[in-house]
């Protein structure tokens, strides 16, 4: 009896034999994915629950929507809740590679496998395909079961299959990346230790390279839209933008949240609040396919390497100087960027200096890293000395690459488009505190401890901090191009900006701005700059804040907190999460609602909450109408302010929510008919009557903890949170103003505190005309974080209001 049949096709034999032998890995993947898919199955449970509790009026529609909603969350959600399983999947892929290709590292195994009647290339590819099949089957099968089950329940849908296919594609790509990187590494090295270390480096190399490229562009090219990428795993999409976000987020592979995150909310309750007619999200598979293509290319490369691999490498370390060089050349500069990150902390370091820091740090780390790795591998100082030339070659390659990269980047980002070539322009603020404060804080939105910025507000809706979007007005474009040119001149930018605060001292403002031109030929030109000043920002502030897009976004956010679809599901049913609104005139504060509710007063709270919601809605409508301009530059006389004070921490800690808790400030103008109508409805319109004007305004800047407000025994009634306690008993309150208060602790709420002292550079105004002018410019928060003045307005009756005056308004 001889064997004829199986040997006719050794490739098929190898493939099937390896699938048969390594099936436990596939089963493990299957179990993990099945556990994740349980979320999809749980819709059925939700359905039953909702029916039992009579929570839904139309079970069929709600159930379908719920299902689609969950599936969409798999495709788009950015939460990371299943980290353990994600890592487990990746580890399994790596382990499978090591199991399948360990024959390359064993002298004895190589003797047998290389002498078999199959080419090395085919043998390797058969094993590779077996691994790919195992991993793919482990993903696809549970997905398939989940889909079939749901099709049975809810009917067929092409979108469902597209979503399932997309999710599977992403998971498979992620695992195949690890699998392929380890396989490639094993074709080059000779030992298991090297496989672990170099395999990890190869796997993460896109992250390393992406970070190096983005950091290098950021520090070497003025105008570059790239920045440091702080996330190791989030940068598999290539270069990152100024926020550190991958530009092509769809290509991310290690961010499993994209496809594995289950809903974090309690589904039983959220069924109630599902929006109607949910549609499946359409996945964007292009980058995933490109990524998969890269993996296939690497697999083919690995097979070609195996075909030429010297068998005598097996069991020996240091046999792959090329890979060793690649690892050192990747990890060294990556660590160099970390050094730059540390150096950047000072903010006042120039970008040229950071560039030099990067070069020197990288070279030192490369030299040390190369030496350590080489000595470990070859364990011979004599041999090491003879191989030192490779280090020098590597350093030369590094220098050439960096030089070329910086030159190209500088040339590329030096140009500014001409007005006639620009079709539209957008301006975004990736991390600009100054500008966001200016726009958003002017609205008075701030939650006491964590300031909420306009960029956050906008980004939560659009994922981009767009302040001006697609403006086509040539005057605006001109202004922005002029600003761009001014920014370009400052070519030795500092990581942070030194900003002279109206003669009161220098401050560091780490502000950035990104300008995106859409040219008439359809191309996009992005420019970003690190150095911003109030003066420059103000040249385009009206354009930014008066856009319909900005108005819509702010109004939408205001309204969405009380009316928006499923978000409301996260509001606790008793409504206590929304705190109190108060209206006050300059004569004092008059609450339109009672201040605090105990648990027994839920019914009353709900009704009060309704009143508050109405008020927010009305303010939102006035913003949309333009009667409450976002830049607060109204020709009308201010009637008074409406603001929120927080009594409790909110329950709004779920995703996608901006809590509107403390001290939200809205000026009220006579034309804000919607707001005034609500106040009238609740009998509060007269709070703005008999508006008094201050008899004195005192303002100063906050330079240090030793600058205090004037102390005239004036007190302020209210409860403020202590943000910081100084050495001498001074405290910084949640509104940012410094007071003297003995025995306070951070995080504590204090009452009836005294203001004791003004700083040396304090200005006091008593002239009524001047007071009237200043009064028009004040608000409760600074326009820029560091550029404003703390001001105190004293009234005839002895009361006082503390507020901000924007520096650019105070000439």
């Amino acid at each position, binding site marked *: 009896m001889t*064997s004829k049949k*199986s040997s006719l096709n*050794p490739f098929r034999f190898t493939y099937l034999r390896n699938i048969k032998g390594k099936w436990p890995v596939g089963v493990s993947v299957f179990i993990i994915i099945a556990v994740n898919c349980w979320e999809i199955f749980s819709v059925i449970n939700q359905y039953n629950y909702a029916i039992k509790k009579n929570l839904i009026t139309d079970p069929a529609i709600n159930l379908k929507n719920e299902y689609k909603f969950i599936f969409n969350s798999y495709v788009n959600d950015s939460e990371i809740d299943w980290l353990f399983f994600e890592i487990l999947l990746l580890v399994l892929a790596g382990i499978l590679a090591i199991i399948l290709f360990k024959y390359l590292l064993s002298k*004895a195994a190589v003797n047998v496998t290389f*002498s078999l009647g*199959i080419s090395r290339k085919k043998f390797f590819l058969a094993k590779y395909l077996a691994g790919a099949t195992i991993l793919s089957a482990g993903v696809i099968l549970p997905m398939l079961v989940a889909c079939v089950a749901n099709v049975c329940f809810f009917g067929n849908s092409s979108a469902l299959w597209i979503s399932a296919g997309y999710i599977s594609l992403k998971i498979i790509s992620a695992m195949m990346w690890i699998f392929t990187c380890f396989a490639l590494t094993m074709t080059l090295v000779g030992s298991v230790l090297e496989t672990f270390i170099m395999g990890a480096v190869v796997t993460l190399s896109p992250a390393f390279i992406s970070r190096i490229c983005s950091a290098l562009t950021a520090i070497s090219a003025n105008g570059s839209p790239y920045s440091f990428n702080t996330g190791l795993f989030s940068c598999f999409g290539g270069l990152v933008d100024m926020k550190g976000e991958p530009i092509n987020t769809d290509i991310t592979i290690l961010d499993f949240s994209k496809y594995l995150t289950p809903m974090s909310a309690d589904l039983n309750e959220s069924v109630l609040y599902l929006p109607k007619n949910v549609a499946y999200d359409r996945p964007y598979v292009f980058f995933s396919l490109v990524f998969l293509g890269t993996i296939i290319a690497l697999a083919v490369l690995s097979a070609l390497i195996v075909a030429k691999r*010297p*068998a*005598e490498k097996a069991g020996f370390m240091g046999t792959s100087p090329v890979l060793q060089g690649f690892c050192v050349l990747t990890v060294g500069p990556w660590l160099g960027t970390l050094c730059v990150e540390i150096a950047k902390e000072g903010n006042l370091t120039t970008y040229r200096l950071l560039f030099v820091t990067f070069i020197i740090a990288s070279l030192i780390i490369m030299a040390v890293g190369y030496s350590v790795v080489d000595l470990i591998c070859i364990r011979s100082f004599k041999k090491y000395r003879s191989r030192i030339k490779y280090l020098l070659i590597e350093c030369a390659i590094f220098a050439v690459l960096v030089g070329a990269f910086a030159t190209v980047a500088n040339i590329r980002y030096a140009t500014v488009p001409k007005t006639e070539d620009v079709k539209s322009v957008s301006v975004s603020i990736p991390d600009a505190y100054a500008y966001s404060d200016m726009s958003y804080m002017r609205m008075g939105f701030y939650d006491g401890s964590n300031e909420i910025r306009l960029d956050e507000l906008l980004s939560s809706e659009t994922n981009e901090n767009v302040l001006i979007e697609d403006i086509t007005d040539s005057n605006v474009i001109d202004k922005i191009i002029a600003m761009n040119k001014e920014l370009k001149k400052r070519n030795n930018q500092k990581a942070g900006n030194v900003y002279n605060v109206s003669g009161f001292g220098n401050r560091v403002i780490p502000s950035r701005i990104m300008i995106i031109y859409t040219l008439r030929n359809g191309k996009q030109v992005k420019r970003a700059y690190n150095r911003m000043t109030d003066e420059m920002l103000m040249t385009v502030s009206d354009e930014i804040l008066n856009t319909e897009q900005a108005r819509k976004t702010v109004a939408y956010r205001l309204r969405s907190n009380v009316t928006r679809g499923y978000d409301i599901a996260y509001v606790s049913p008793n409504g206590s999460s929304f705190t109190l609104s108060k209206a006050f005139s300059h004569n004092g504060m008059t609450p339109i609602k009672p201040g605090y509710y105990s648990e027994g007063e839920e019914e009353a709270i709900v009704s009060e909450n309704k009143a508050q919601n109405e008020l927010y809605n009305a303010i939102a409508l006035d913003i949309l109408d333009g009667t409450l301009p976002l830049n607060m530059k109204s020709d009308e006389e201010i009637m008074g302010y409406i603001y929120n004070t927080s009594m409790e921490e909110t329950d709004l800690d779920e995703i996608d929510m901006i809590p509107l808790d403390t001290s939200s400030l809205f000026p009220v103008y006579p034309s804000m008919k919607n707001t005034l109508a609500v106040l009238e409805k609740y009998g509060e319109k007269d709070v703005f009557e008999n508006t008094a004007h201050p008899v004195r305004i005192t303002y100063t800047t906050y330079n240090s903890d030793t600058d205090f407000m004037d102390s005239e025994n004036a007190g302020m009634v209210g409860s403020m949170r202590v943000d910081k306690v100084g050495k001498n008993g001074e405290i910084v309150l949640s509104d940012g103003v410094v007071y003297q208060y003995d025995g306070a602790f951070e995080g504590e709420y204090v009452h009836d505190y005294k203001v004791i002292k003004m700083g040396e550079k304090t200005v006091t105004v008593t002239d009524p005309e001047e007071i009237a002018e200043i009064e028009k410019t004040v608000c409760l928060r600074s326009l820029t974080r560091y550029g404003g003045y703390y001001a105190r307005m004293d009234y005839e009756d002895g009361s006082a209001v503390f507020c901000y005056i924007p520096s650019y308004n105070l000439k």
Partner: protein
Amino acid sequence: MISIDRVTKKYGDFTAIENLSMQVPEGSIYGLVGYNGAGKTTLLKSVAGVYGICSGSITVNGKNTFTSPEIRQKMFYVPDEIYFEPFSTIEKMAKLYAGYYPGFSFSTMDKLCGVFKLDKKAKLNSFSKGMQRQAEMILGMSTMPDVLLLDESFDGLDPQKRNLMNGMIVDYVAERNCSVIISSHNLHEISDICDRVALINGKNIVLDCSVDDVSANRCKFRLAFAEEKTQADFSGFDIKKFKGDGKIVTLSLRGNEEENEEKLRQMNPLLLEKFPLTLEEIFLEEMEDSDYDFKEIFS
């Protein structure tokens, strides 16, 4: 026929074999002898297609063994370092080999397991080194190869099993006209079963002839003369080794045995004794560099 033509193999800067040529005809058992590190294993691995060579060519029936998997399907290499898959048995390994060797015969395997008294279902890692060698040989023979490459394959075998193995190889070669290369330090084995022997000295083959010719062309003489003799007195001979002790001389000569004896007698020795050289003696003479005087080293 295995044809090795001017093969050079280097490991980095080190040259393991250089410009080496030899031919192994069909139905021939070729013994490869050499000291440790002489290049025997390198040569065998190169023939097996495990190692790529730097220059020259290695072909079996005209096909390159490194690039042609088809020819490797008819060739079995038994390395000095035995490898079995983890937790495998002879049976499982047989299934593996059956996937790559079209001629694999399970019945042959069963019969050979019976002859060598090995349990084909037992875990191979529980076998002794000698048993593992037998198992590997059984698997190799069951592939019914046209070319068999054995690297130190008799190491660890007891005399009975060695004898059995010899018989198996000789019978197989006779039956299937197989070409066999055996590398071994055991010169007795070589002389027992090989019909041709090649001696590798470092990088090259220094001796390549049939086993019979080896002895026929070498002979050792011990002579006693009336007066003292030096090596210069024997300038007319092809001396491989000379040891003079005054009037007593021991000579190892190349060339025709009878002719050498006749010439020596013409020198009128008081005593002439003739000893045929064993393969081992020939091997040691060829490796005379390793003929250290350990007394000198340890004195």
